[in-house]
């Protein structure tokens, strides 16, 4: 197999995947490899010269079927810093039958010989389906309530930089677990690296058989946050606050919104995270979001680094080999 950049890929014996569709299927060494690579990307991103040539000449298409500012721009920056040509495509859920759009769009794009497709879709499994139909590498940027692997990786990187490791950590993931792909990817990743994972939320927002995923379940913040090292808040979608899953924003914030008082249940040096975008006053109080224990802004920085790491790791397995006609 010809490789374009032997010096970078030589360090990656542990990463042999063509796609990144989820945390599921990754081994702990593979996850750590990605985190190590991301550390280097953090350094690169803080320099004046932020460019690497790993993806020079490559085409990366960001295909977003669901609106996203931060994930899409994060992937765009990551691709550009590695030298790829990046194109953004936002395909709203149009009047066309949704799945038809997915496959048809994918096949059309595939015919343009891209090297990497970064895909976000509102349906769980959509990215898997797409990966079966195209010839390039596919990165899952969030599929329904299934997975959002780069978010979990950036959360892990942020945690590791502050806590040094995962072995003794208690991580409480709080809020709308039912609809959250961030929660699922984080549960898988943190469990793989040996952290103790808790899920905290009202029972209407906890999926059935959640305990089978290897987490402890709490329905009140006080016991759920007790002795926690990391408090990870999740976004609650507006349409779920109107009585369908919780009675009102007011009641939700009262019992599950993270304010200083509830944060005090956790360890004194506990750190607060949120994948964004935040609903201030719904799941998190501004004083906490902007407070000293918050890592929320750092998560954004780590997002670019982790996406650079993922792109670099996949670069060894891209189609369109050098010299191929």
């Amino acid at each position: 197999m010809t490789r374009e950049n032997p010096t970078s890929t030589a360090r990656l014996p542990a990463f042999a995947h063509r796609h990144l569709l989820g945390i599921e299927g990754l081994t702990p060494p593979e996850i750590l490899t990605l985190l190590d690579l991301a550390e280097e990307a953090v350094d690169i991103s803080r320099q004046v010269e932020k460019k690497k040539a790993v993806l020079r000449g490559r085409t990366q298409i960001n295909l977003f079927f669901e609106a996203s500012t931060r994930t899409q721009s994060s992937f765009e920056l990551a691709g550009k810093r590695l030298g790829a040509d990046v194109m953004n495509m936002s395909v709203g859920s149009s009047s066309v039958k949704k799945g038809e759009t997915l496959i048809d769009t994918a096949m059309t794009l595939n015919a343009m010989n891209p090297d990497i497709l970064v895909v976000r879709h509102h349906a769980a499994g959509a990215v898997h389906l797409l990966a079966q139909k195209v010839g390039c590498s596919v990165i899952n940027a969030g599929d329904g309530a299934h997975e959002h692997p780069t978010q979990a990786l950036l959360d892990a990187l942020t945690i590791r930089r502050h806590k040094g490791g995962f072995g003794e950590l208690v991580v409480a993931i709080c809020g709308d677990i039912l609809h959250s792909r961030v929660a699922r990817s984080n549960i898988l990743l943190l469990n793989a690296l040996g952290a103790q994972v808790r899920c905290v939320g009202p029972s209407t927002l906890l999926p059935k058989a959640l305990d089978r995923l290897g987490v402890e379940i709490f329905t009140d913040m006080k016991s759920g946050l007790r002795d926690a090292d990391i408090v990870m808040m999740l976004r609650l979608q507006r349409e779920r606050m109107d009585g369908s899953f919780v009675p009102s924003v007011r009641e939700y914030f009262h019992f599950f919104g993270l304010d200083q008082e509830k944060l005090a249940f956790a360890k004194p040096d506990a750190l607060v995270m949120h994948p964004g975008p935040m609903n201030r006053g719904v799941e998190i109080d501004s004083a906490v979001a902007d407070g000293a224990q918050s890592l929320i802004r750092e998560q954004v920085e780590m997002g670019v680094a982790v996406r650079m790491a993922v792109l670099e790791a996949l670069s060894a397995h891209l189609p369109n080999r050098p010299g191929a006609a």
Partner: protein
Amino acid sequence: MSLSAIRAEARPLVITGARIVDPTSGLDAIGSVVVVDGLIRDVARGAAPGVPEGATIIEARGKALLPGLIDMRVFVGEPGAEHRETFASAGQAAAAGGVTTIVTMPDTDPVIDDVALVDFIARLARDTAAVNVLPMAALTKGLKGREMTEFGLLGAAGAVGFTDGRHSITNALVLRRALTYARDFGALIMHHPADPDLVGSGVMNEGETATRLGLPGIPREAEIIMLERDIRIAALTGGRYHAAQISCAASLDIIRRAKKQGLAVSCGVSATHLALNERDVGPYRTFYRLAPPLRDEDDRLAMIEGVADGSIDVIVSSHDPQDVDTKRHPFAEAADGAVGLETLLAAALRPVHNGEASLASVVRALSARPAELLGLPSGRIAAGAPADLILVDLEQPWICEADKLHSRSKNTPFEGARFEGRVLMTLVGGRTVYKDNEA
């Protein structure tokens, strides 16, 4: 073989040396069957008592001769979705699967809720399908769950029962009136018990697999609660109620209790639910998206137990042809349904080979019992019955390949599955409508 050639074949027929399995009479022995004018004239242990002149002789060499299968839940596609399945292609699939009678669902475009449409189906099927086609008509006009259809006139036109197919009747009063009125005609009411509110946006069984996949789940209670309601209404009205398909262990308990009470209640299960569970969904495989959904292993085992002890009356294919336009989607956006006519017998035989159910119990649920429920003379191997017969090698191993299916749609959940038991020959009214070329 062309259909006209099949129709022309009218010579008497003698099948000898077959292992005749007829659950109705309890017969399971090597014997012979004589067929004249499309009817079974004689069934005998050992050699045939008399061979009619000019008869074709078929040496069965110990292979099993079973009553042709009667499948009480088949979605066809004609009229309205001929690109998925026509009566001709469904007939070929049925013949290849050993199914000699299919009961078709009214969920077509237009909906089969009118006498003229039942008549249309009957004629179309007679002219194009290789097997017997018996339509069920809609229970409510337009499948809307509000006004009942003309049970008396539709029944006289040939509808063998009334159902809203995939749809559930949410209004208990509508079901009450329908079951009450149907009683006067002795009509069978078949219902798909699934509370649409509890199903909600669910797309697979609620549980660990759905949680891992991030898919909205369908709780068992969606089926259990509606089935319990239906049974109470059946008790209230005395009507003949048939649950099209059950999928959970708790539903089986409800059915058993109802039968113990002596109610005119019966139920079915799909062969797919006997063979597979929710874990088979794997990485979002839409061919495993069914209604009711595949449940967990305990439920699957309970369904087999229900067939083995007769609490579950019939095994159906729930044949539901879908194509890439409806299946090649993300799981949550794909259609329900799988084809099943050609794998019905093989999937239903798995519990027999595993020692979980007797051959007689499975064959009864595939032939004699549906015939009883529908009031058909077929479903048994006895003098005077129609010669709807299948010759089966119960042990022959084979691998299911989607491309080789006769159905126009290839959405089988059994692609690559290993089966034991293959149909060698299918007779409908004494005419050969299928012969296995690989045998």
